[in-house]
């Protein structure tokens, strides 16, 4: 899993986006408030200046005002004058000041305005306001806005850099935290993977802390302890059943042999009794095997790479003489080098059971083919026997589901009735799918596995 797909990283992104939005708003507001304060200061200066000039006009008349303006301007620089003045007669004639003409975008309404003028070769930005005096005289007072612009730029850059750094650091810390979080989640994921493959021994690493991941880890460990205990119990129960049934049968066997030795039991009766004992044991073993395989179905820790083609060849070799004895045509076509991950003995047993069954019911022939099928393999075993009664086709893979195997045939077949249940358990253990189609002219069983891999 990449870090950007973790929920923690997503949370970080969303969180940072919200902070960025709100932060931008707040900073913009602060920025604007600061600039407004600067403008107010300038406004105040301009107002004071304007008030002085206006009172001079009313006290001493426009000539004195014009003279005063000119002398004030004599002190300021010609290139970028700090102060801007302009006095116009009612007819619009310039009486004094350092502006050539009245700026067209300013009206004498005594409001401060930012405008660009060209008293000098370079256009200059100024704050200015104008007012109308009695008798139609107009006066304009302004202040250079250069310092204000510099302040504005500085303020903007500082805020941008600061906020940018905050976002980068915040995002970085968020992603680092997400990575640490992901590492711990990945540890748990790896653990689950191992357990899924049947290894119940590993446990989640626990830290001192008691955060939610530690709690989750503790929960998983608890579940694993419980599962291990149940599996051990299952094995112990199976062992005890085996022990409790086999031991008396062993004693019985000893008694029979002693009796036979002392001629108290005829050999024919002893043989019969021994056969019954053997059958009970076969039944017991199959039942315990099925239950063990079912209980450890997901346990793939002891799986090994098996050359299934070779395994099948070994089993078919064992059965070829039997087919010959029964005058059955037994055709075997196998593709080489088909591998499967699994347990050798169980897979051999699966194949042996199916072949044994097919040979038992076939009338003239049994055909077996093994071939690669997409990413896996398909094994088909077909016979031309009487087929399986449709009524029991669905339950044939269940324990003791024997009944009348053959279509319209009441003859009961020998066997424990567990062979196909064992086949099913082993197939499930190896994720092999069993398909069966049966009609009065024969049965086809197909096993497919999608977990083929080449060595």
């Amino acid at each position: 899993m990449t870090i950007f797909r973790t929920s923690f990283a997503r949370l970080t992104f969303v969180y940072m986006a919200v902070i960025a939005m709100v932060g931008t708003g707040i900073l913009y507001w602060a920025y604007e408030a600061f600039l407004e304060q600067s403008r107010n200061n300038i406004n105040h200066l301009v107002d004071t200046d304007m008030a002085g000039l206006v009172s001079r006009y009313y006290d001493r008349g426009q000539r004195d005002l014009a003279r005063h303006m000119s002398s004030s301007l004599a002190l300021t620089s010609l290139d970028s004058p700090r102060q801007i003045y302009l006095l116009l007669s009612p007819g619009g004639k310039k009486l004094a000041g350092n502006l050539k003409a009245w700026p067209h975008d300013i009206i004498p309404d005594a409001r401060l305005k930012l405008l660009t003028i060209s008293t000098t070769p370079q256009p200059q930005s100024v704050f200015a306001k104008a007012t109308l005096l009695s008798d139609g005289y107009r006066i304009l007072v302004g202040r250079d806005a250069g310092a204000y612009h510099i302040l504005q730029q500085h303020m903007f850059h500082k805020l941008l850099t600061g906020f940018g750094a905050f976002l980068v650091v915040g995002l970085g810390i968020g992603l680092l935290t997400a990575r640490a979080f992901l590492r711990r989640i990945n540890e748990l994921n790896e653990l689950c993977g191992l357990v899924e493959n049947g290894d119940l021994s590993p446990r989640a690493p626990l830290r001192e802390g008691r955060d939610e991941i530690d709690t989750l880890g503790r929960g998983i460990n608890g579940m694993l302890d419980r599962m291990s205990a149940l599996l051990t119990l299952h094995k112990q129960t199976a062992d005890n059943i085996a022990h409790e049934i086999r031991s008396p049968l062993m004693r019985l066997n000893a008694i029979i042999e002693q009796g036979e030795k002392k001629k108290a039991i005829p050999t024919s009766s002893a043989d019969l009794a021994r056969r019954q004992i053997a059958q009970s044991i076969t039944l017991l073993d199959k039942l315990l095997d099925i239950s063990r395989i079912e209980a450890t179905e997901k346990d793939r820790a002891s799986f090994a790479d098996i050359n299934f083609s070779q395994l099948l060849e070994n089993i078919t070799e064992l059965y070829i003489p039997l087919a010959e004895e029964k005058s059955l045509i037994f055709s075997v076509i196998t593709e080489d080098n088909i591998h499967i991950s699994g347990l050798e003995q169980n897979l051999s047993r699966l194949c042996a059971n199916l072949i044994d069954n097919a040979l038992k019911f076939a009338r003239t022939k049994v055909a077996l083919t093994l071939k690669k099928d997409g990413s896996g393999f398909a094994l088909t075993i077909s016979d031309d026997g009487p087929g399986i009664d449709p009524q029991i086709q669905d339950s044939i893979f269940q324990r003791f589901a024997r009944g009348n195997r053959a279509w319209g045939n009441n003859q009961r077949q020998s066997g424990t009735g567990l062979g196909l249940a064992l086949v099913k358990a082993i197939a499930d253990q190896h994720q092999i799918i069993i398909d069966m189609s049966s009609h009065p002219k024969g049965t086809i069983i197909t096993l497919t596995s999608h977990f083929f891999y080449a060595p």
Partner: protein
Amino acid sequence: MMDITTPMKALCLEDDTIIADYIIDLLQSSGWQVIPVSTLAAATKAVMTEDFDLLVLDRMLPDGDSLGFLKKLRQNDVQTPAIILTALGRTEDKIDGYESGADDYLPKPFEAAEFNARIKALLRRAAYVEQKDMIKMGSLELRIKARTVFHGENFIDLSPKEFELLHYFMSRENDIITRNMLLKDVWGLNFDPGTNVIDVNIGRLRKRIQQGGDSVHLITVRGIGFKLEEKGSD
């Protein structure tokens, strides 16, 4: 193989008295001196004070599983042949047994003949020295490297498996070989395939041998297994 004056000594670890008596009886009738014990503690004490030629071990004992005991012996380089007789007879249990250092694993209940055959095979394996390239019985000759079999002048055509099977019998001349031994050693299977497949395979091998001559017979020992013997021998 057995010295009459100093009988071979076997340790029998079994907690069920009826079964223990049965095993002791079987071993004694084959000329063994048997030291019976019923707990792992007693067995441990016995192996520390005496040398044995054979260990016969039950698995589930009052004080534990004898596989651990056997493992420890093997770790201490005690290579005495060991056979496990047990009520745990499933495929997986057998694998556990062999992995713990057992030379053979016989699930209960077993028959006397099977037991005797296994013990004999076990001791033969322990005393196994060197494989000759040619094994001869009567006029039956098997060459291992060339993988050819002649019965007198006649070449016997065998499949690879049949060759392996005959080789197995010829290297155990006159021994009774049980079906389980064949399944395990020749076909590598730890389970019983049910139908009489082994008998059919043996029947086929028998026919092949007889095609070439009459000096060697592959006979069925009723209820136990098979034996390859020279004609006229007992």
